[in-house]
């Protein structure tokens, strides 16, 4: 540069700027591809939503009755005498399994996250993080299989109950399934707490534990709440494992040993057997809309909370 200027005091503009060369086209092409990629995700999501809505709309406009849909425990779409479409038992199934799953997952994942973030370092920490991520990648059908073949006989044996496919079984399975991702996010939240807070607390004589529960946990509480909510969202949407481990029978549960049926599992199990466009078919899509709305709200809230953390 300096040499150039020394030779001619006002050098002409770099030629690269006034001609479109291959770099420029490549740049544009990449830009367009990125845009298509990005926009198509949005288009697909909207497309799916529209599709589900259209299919479910027939039901909402026809057989749908608000009080029956939300407050009747009878889901009898194939009844010969009178079909009923009540979600209460299914919602109770989903809620009880998800709730129980959180009882399992929250202490597990918070404990693991605290251990990884605050008590381990170096190789051990990396190893634990990779392991957790591997656990998160286990397909849900494998978890369902574990519920069927291992948990089921175990529960029958330990608690002397006739069936081991119930809330307890599915709750534990779902809890273990949700724990890895919750651990990951909770650990991120803990790591996001600046180290100078730890230093400050320790320099004043706080022990590790005092530091954790007086400083780190309160500072990370939004991120931790977000992690829990994402776990709840995961529980709500999970299908295969709950289909296999709940017993899949319609019940308003009164104990953890009752078999239940989940909203998602109902769609998965029945959709293949219904005539396209029938009331039953459309009712299943209406459940889909409901699930969509609930998970959307949960994820949105979780996202907002976690974002709140980032901003400070």
């Amino acid at each position, binding site marked *: 540069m300096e040499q150039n200027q020394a030779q001619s005091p006002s050098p002409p503009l770099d030629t690269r700027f006034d001609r479109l060369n291959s770099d420029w086209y490549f740049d544009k092409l990449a830009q367009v591809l990125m845009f298509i990629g990005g926009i198509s995700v949005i288009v697909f999501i909207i497309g799916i939503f529209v599709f589900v809505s259209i299919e479910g709309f027939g039901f909402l406009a026809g057989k749908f009755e608000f009080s029956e849909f939300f407050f009747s425990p009878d889901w009898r779409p194939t009844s010969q005498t009178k079909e009923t479409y009540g979600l209460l038992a299914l919602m109770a199934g989903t809620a009880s399994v998800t709730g129980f799953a959180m009882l399992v997952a929250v202490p597990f994942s918070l404990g693991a996250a605290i251990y990884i973030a605050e008590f381990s*370092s170096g190789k051990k920490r990396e190893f634990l993080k990779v392991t957790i991520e591997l656990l998160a990648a286990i397909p849900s059908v494998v978890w369902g299989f574990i519920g069927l073949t291992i948990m089921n006989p175990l529960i029958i044996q330990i608690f002397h109950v006739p069936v081991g496919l119930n809330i307890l079984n599915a709750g534990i399975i779902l809890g273990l399934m949700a724990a890895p991702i919750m651990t990951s996010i909770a650990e991120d939240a803990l790591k996001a707490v600046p180290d*100078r*807070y*730890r*230093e*400050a*607390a*320790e*320099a*004043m*004589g*706080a*022990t590790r534990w*005092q530091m954790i529960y*007086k*400083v780190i946990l*309160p*500072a990370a509480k939004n991120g931790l709440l977000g992690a829990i909510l994402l776990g709840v969202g995961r529980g709500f949407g999970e299908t295969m494992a709950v289909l296999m481990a709940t017993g899949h029978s319609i019940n308003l549960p009164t104990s953890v040993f009752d078999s239940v049926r989940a909203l998602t599992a109902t769609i998965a199990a029945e959709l293949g057997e219904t005539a396209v466009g029938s009331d039953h078919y459309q009712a299943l899509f209406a459940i889909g809309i409901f699930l969509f709305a609930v998970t959307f709200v949960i994820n949105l809230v979780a996202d907002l909370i976690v974002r709140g953390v980032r901003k400070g």
Partner: protein
Amino acid sequence: MGGTSTRALAIATQKLNLWYGTFQALFDIDLNIGQGIITSMIGPSGCGKSTFLRSVNRINERLGYVRITGSVDVMGEDIYQQGVELVQVRKQVGMVFQRPNPLPISIRDNVLFSHRLHTSDKCSKARLDEIVEDALQQVLLWDVVKDKLQHKATSLSLEQQQKLCIARLLPVKPAVLLMDEPCSALDPKGTEAVEELIWELRGKYSILIVTHNMAQARRASDECVFMLMGKVIEHTDTGDMFVTPRNQETADYIEGRYG
């Protein structure tokens, strides 16, 4: 080495060596810091000032790869002796960091944090209020924050945060206050205010303050320690050091010939 030898000692080290892993940061430090006075510590970047300070409150041990030989006595007790309680050491030796680091809780809870750690029995609310007011009065912050004690400490200005970081050490009555460049994150006005405060605390606490600011060392300390490459080069009355330094290196540094 130097200093006023008749004075009772707040900190006394013998042959203190310190390694970060295999890197030796302190070499045979023999240093006697008197009680009730302000001692400043100067020296070029990387000479081990922070390292020395951090080993007096044993906060270096957080790192896990720090090794020490020699001894450090605080108020006559060897703090590296076996059986010494870390919690007690840190109660007795308060530390103020370069970047103000109030905890992300309320101002009031910040002031009471240390107190709550070190006092097992419950105090009445009136007693706690008294403690908070007293500590904040001492750092000249009470009038500014008395109406917003429940606000988050992190919402204060940097100067106020740093004062709060000093205030929260006081309720447990530490013997020694270590300050690692407490003004370096502050503007000139904030610096002046905090300096003034440190001067106010003189006599009540033994204060060891690291600074890069020659003028600050000169006007705000009784004695001065000059360090270079992990060693103590000179330790005398501040006045003497700046007027008639005994070492060529000290003279060079004071005249700004080091970084």
